[in-house]
């Protein structure tokens, strides 16, 4: 479960990236975070994952405040950043082993997860190659595998579909559903409204650091009082802010 309470973040003294943000994402739910470029999605995600400190407000993951116990919070999160270009000179297997050590995964558990993930993502043949030799999509997959190796109770992704082929993207969506159904939280940002519409239990639309809407797609349709595509509603919402 993720709870954000009155979270604020300002850059360079005057650019308000996150403006009094309140969000609660319960367990067992896939939550889509939508918004135009520069809306504050990545900043919010960086605050939840401990990459950035909020100026004020509190962030709690599974009831633990990130300011009080940052390591406990980080241990329960698995984070997939928007650019997968990291540790390029390590081999895939070395990266996964590194992540497993960082998240304190036992030898037996990591071997079991490794087999499962490699098979699921079709990566078994390339794990002994350097990540540098991978395509963008394969890099994205190795980062996702590195995150899932400790089976996090909160799985956060920033634009996870970028660069994935249709098959991998389908598998990822399937895995998101399974992860949420096991009682975990799945939170991801995306531009692809179609994906949000198909997989998310709930969505929030953010623009200029503020939440404009938070609820199910059905609720959004009710809110607009007509049966329109998410794209149209999204454009209308974010446009009225300008």
């Amino acid at each position, binding site marked *: 479960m993720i709870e954000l309470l009155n979270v604020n973040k300002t850059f360079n003294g005057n650019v308000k990236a996150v403006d009094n943000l309140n969000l609660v994402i319960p367990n067992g739910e896939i939550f889509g975070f939508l918004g135009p470029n520069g809306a504050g999605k990545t900043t919010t995600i*960086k605050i939840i*994952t*401990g*990459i*950035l*400190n909020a100026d004020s407000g509190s962030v709690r993951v599974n009831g633990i405040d990130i300011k009080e116990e940052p*390591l*406990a919070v*980080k*241990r329960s*999160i698995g*984070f997939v*950043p928007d650019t997968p*270009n*990291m*540790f390029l*000179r*390590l081999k895939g*297997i*070395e990266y*996964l*082993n*590194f992540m*497993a*050590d*960082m*998240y*304190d*995964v*036992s*030898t037996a558990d*990591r*071997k079991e997860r*490794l*087999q499962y993930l*490699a*098979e699921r993502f079709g990566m*078994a*043949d*390339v*794990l*002994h*190659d*350097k990540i*540098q*030799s*991978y395509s963008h999509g394969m890099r994205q997959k190795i980062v996702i595998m590195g995150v899932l190796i400790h089976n996090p109770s909160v799985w956060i992704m920033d634009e996870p579909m970028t660069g994935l082929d249709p098959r991998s993207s389908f598998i990822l969506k399937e895995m998101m559903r399974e992860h949420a159904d096991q009682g975990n939280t799945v939170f991801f940002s995306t531009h692809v409204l179609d994906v949000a519409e198909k997989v998310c239990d709930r969505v929030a639309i953010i623009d200029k650091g503020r939440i404009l809407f938070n609820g199910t797609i059905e609720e959004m349709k009710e809110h607009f009082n007509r049966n329109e595509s998410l794209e149209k509603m999204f454009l209308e919402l974010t446009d009225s802010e300008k």
Partner: protein
Amino acid sequence: MKNKTLNLAMILLKNGSGLGFKGSSTATKVMMIVLFAIAIPSMMGGVGAFTMFLMEPLMVIGQQGLVLTWGIGITSAAVFVFGIFYIISTFYFSSDVEYLLPLPLKPRQIVGAKFLVVTVFEYIFAAMIFIPIWITYGIRISMGPLYYLYGLVLLILMPIVPLALASLLSMIIMRFTNLNRYKDAFKIIGGLFAMFLGLGINMMMQSMSMNLSPEKLSELLQQGQNSLIGALPSIFPTAGWAGQALVHSGSLKGLMYFAVCIGFSAAVFAGLLALGQLIYLKGVVGLSETGSRRRGHGLEEIDKGVEKGSVITTYTLVELKLLFRTPIYFLNCVIINFLWPVFLLFPFLVRNEEVDMLAEISKAINQSDAGGIILAVFFALALFVSGSNGIAASAISREGQELYVKKYLPVSYKDQLIAKLLSALTLSYVAIVTMVIVGIVLFKIPVTTGVLVLLTGWLPVLFMCLSGLLIDLYNPKLDWDNEQKAVKQNINVLYSIIIGMGLAAASIIPVVAFKWSITVTLPILCGAFLALDLMLYNVLKTVGVRRFGNIDG
């Protein structure tokens, strides 16, 4: 339509982040300015004073013009040696290459623009050596205004010929190393090859200048009138011509040499562009790709060697793997630890009379009371080497834009800093081991002293690692587009070298001045460094950890 080469050069210059002043705190900026305000004028003053010192005897024999030729020759050689790496990293390893290749630019335009960028950076370097020599000579000989005008133009031209030679070598090496899937390994071998070639050419130049026959030399000397300028061979012919142009700036002869210099530099630049047009693309296209084996391990084999390890050990090993596997880091931070002893011994090994010096030194070393000095010298070398490898002083900078990854890992900042410290400590300690081996084999230092150095040498190394890491925490250079900028164009490494040199002097001076024996030197130096290490470690785990948390990832 504006010239595309110049346009591109301007954009590349604007896009570069220089030495890393951007984003530093005001206090850091002030500190840097003060440091430069002291260091640069004192260095230039030193060169000027040395020029005066050299000129007096040369004036007696009418060969004072030699200081100009030497000055330009040394500047060119320095630009060449330092330029090779700079050229390779700018031409080939800079991430902007991938954005430039798809643009409708001719290879010679990319080569030209990148060459100009490197040239501009080399001006700082060339100016520091050449200006004091040029001005000192001008004032001492009371040269006319044309001398100063020529000098200014020649300074602008100066880096072109040596950098063109460096570019030529780099382009040829890269053309043939961009061959197969072991690209990183080839880059390393290519880089090492270029480095040794640079050193070799320098040595060749030295021996060439020694080869002038005594008769010829005395004949030239008797002529006076700066006759030696034209006689000294050099791989940079511009050095001799520029010297002639300056010395004879008042006459037609000077004008002719000046015109020759301009013409030759322009021709070299044009030749470089033509060569770039021919071979640059072959060396650079596909450079960022890495081959893979796709051996098809199969599911049953993939988890071979997958075992749980401790967080700090795994983190340290990954730091070391990245240092070894990234060509720029390997050449600048790793290999240097093995090469320092070789560099330091170079002057002793190449000349005959100095091999006797080696014997003299080992005789001096083996005197019963020399133990204190040996230990102090090893401490000083350890300080210098572990400061100049820049591993600790670039530990945060090397993370670059990916620093945020380290922020979300569930590993305390203290543990992460300790792992970074351990990787720097391990590699720097290797330098001590190589130096002790060289000391025992060549200088015949007593084995017991060698063992003593191995047991205590980690103390000064730890100090350099701690101080380097703290410096980098306060002024990390994270905004870079090629790894060279993280380690070579990083002011933090320079700070670390300065601290290392200062402390090296502080370790040796009292031991020599008060003739401390080993029984006095050992407890004093070890005690002092232990105290310093403990103090800095405490700073690292409190202030340093806080600082790491506050760097925006």
